[in-house]
């Protein structure tokens, strides 16, 4: 029972970290940096800049947005300001290169270097990226990681603790039996094997039960959240574990059972 609980918590942690990972990933996917091009720059300069950016391999997507597109985008984004634009005699928006940072380069030194280099580059009038947003995401990311590590650490610690304790209790409960077997002339392995097998079995059982319960939870969770699609709703939908994670959970269950019983035994049996 306790072991099952352990693996349930482990599984929940895994599933949560899955979701958090997914969430951070999709959030960092949105990290777009806009390089406004000066109006005078020629097509070649633009192509050169684009090439340089592509070569840096820091971006997953680079898109040239010309002046008309920029205007249209502004109009849809701020419909209230359409009257303002109508009063203009010309399109005030410069064309730009919209680049999306690839997943891992978001906060690297190379990324920041490139941005700084670009700032002074000929042909680029301005660089706009949501510094504050990125700052926030970085903090948030850090926080989530911290909470994740923290909870994860506690839970893994708890699992080991509980499992080793269960097996210790088991061994202690059978202390007499073990002593008798030794006095009757059993080898250490004769005594150990049933315990080890029991440990592995219990660990495995705990893992299986945990996976089942997790599956139940993830299946029932959307029902509870109910009718709230929305972007975030979709991002944070409770994802189930992948097959390899399930296997890992089961294997680690057996492994923890094995190691736990083994360490308890080696502590108790002395040899």
């Amino acid at each position, binding site marked *: 029972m306790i072991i099952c609980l352990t693996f349930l918590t482990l599984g929940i942690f895994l599933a949560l970290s899955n979701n958090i990972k997914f969430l951070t990933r999709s959030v960092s996917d949105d990290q777009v940096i806009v390089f406004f091009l000066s109006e005078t720059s020629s097509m070649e300069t633009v192509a050169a800049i684009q090439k340089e950016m592509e070569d840096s391999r820091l971006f997953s997507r680079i898109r040239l947005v010309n002046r008309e597109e920029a205007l249209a985008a502004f109009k849809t984004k701020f419909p209230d300001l359409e009257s303002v634009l109508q009063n203009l005699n010309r399109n005030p928006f410069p064309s730009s290169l919209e680049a999306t940072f690839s997943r891992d380069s978001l906060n690297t030194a190379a990324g920041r270097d490139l941005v700084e280099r670009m700032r002074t580059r000929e042909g680029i009038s301005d660089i706009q990226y949501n510094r504050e947003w990125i700052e926030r995401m970085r903090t948030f990311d850090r926080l989530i990681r911290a909470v994740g590590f923290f909870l994860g650490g506690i839970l893994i610690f708890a699992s080991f603790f509980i499992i080793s304790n269960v097996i210790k209790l088991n061994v202690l409960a059978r202390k*007499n*039996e073990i002593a*008798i077997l*030794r006095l*009757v*002339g*059993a080898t250490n392995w004769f005594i150990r094997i049933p315990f080890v097998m029991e440990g592995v079995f219990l660990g495995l059982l705990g893992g299986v039960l945990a996976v089942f319960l997790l599956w139940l939870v993830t299946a029932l969770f959307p029902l509870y959240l109910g009718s709230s699609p929305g972007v975030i709703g979709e991002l944070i939908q409770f994802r189930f574990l992948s097959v390899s994670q399930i296997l890992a959970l089961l294997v680690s269950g057996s492994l923890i059972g094995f190691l736990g019983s083994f360490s308890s035994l080696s502590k108790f049996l002395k040899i």
Partner: protein
Amino acid sequence: MIELYHIWKKYQGNDWALSDVSFFINPGEFTFITGPSGSGKSTLLKILYRELLPTEGQIVIDQRNILKIPDNKLYELRRSMGIVFQDFRLLFHKSVFENVAVALRILGMTGKDIRTRVFNALRMVSLQKKMWELPSRLSYGEQQRVAIARAIVNNPKIILADEPTGNLDIKLAFEIMSLFQEINEKGTTVIICTHDRELIRYFGHSILFLFKGRVLRKEQL
């Protein structure tokens, strides 16, 4: 051949439980150890099967200094001995059959062999009827007989029995003693702790008197 040389034993913070105990027991001998309560009989037996280590002294059994056997080879010594513990030490979650069979299972013996030998041993102590009971459902004397059956089932070279008839009526006690004698006549060394004078009078070949941890005298009848 069991040889004890100047065995001293002190439990932490106590008087000497054994002081300077030396004696020899020849192979095939039938020895009683007797003495009042607390005189060190059980302590002496425990040292013989190495549940305890003596504070001082040496023990040689069949040319082998048993105090030098490493812990992970102890099972060899124990397998050569059949031990009846004063407090029985039965496996309380296993049936009487399993309790006796365990002495064979540890040798890696298989199904049918075990069954016949366990059945024979239980018959010798008149317990074949209770074969499938749990020890907790037996009377005290019956539990004692299970312990005896376990000690003799694997034909050990040495039998050590600590007060094996303390909970048995005189008729059964005599039966059990006759059983030990029979086994002894086939060449097994038998050492029995008891305070029952009647039994000693009847079966005693060689008797060791202990008193406050000292060998008072050794009689050879």
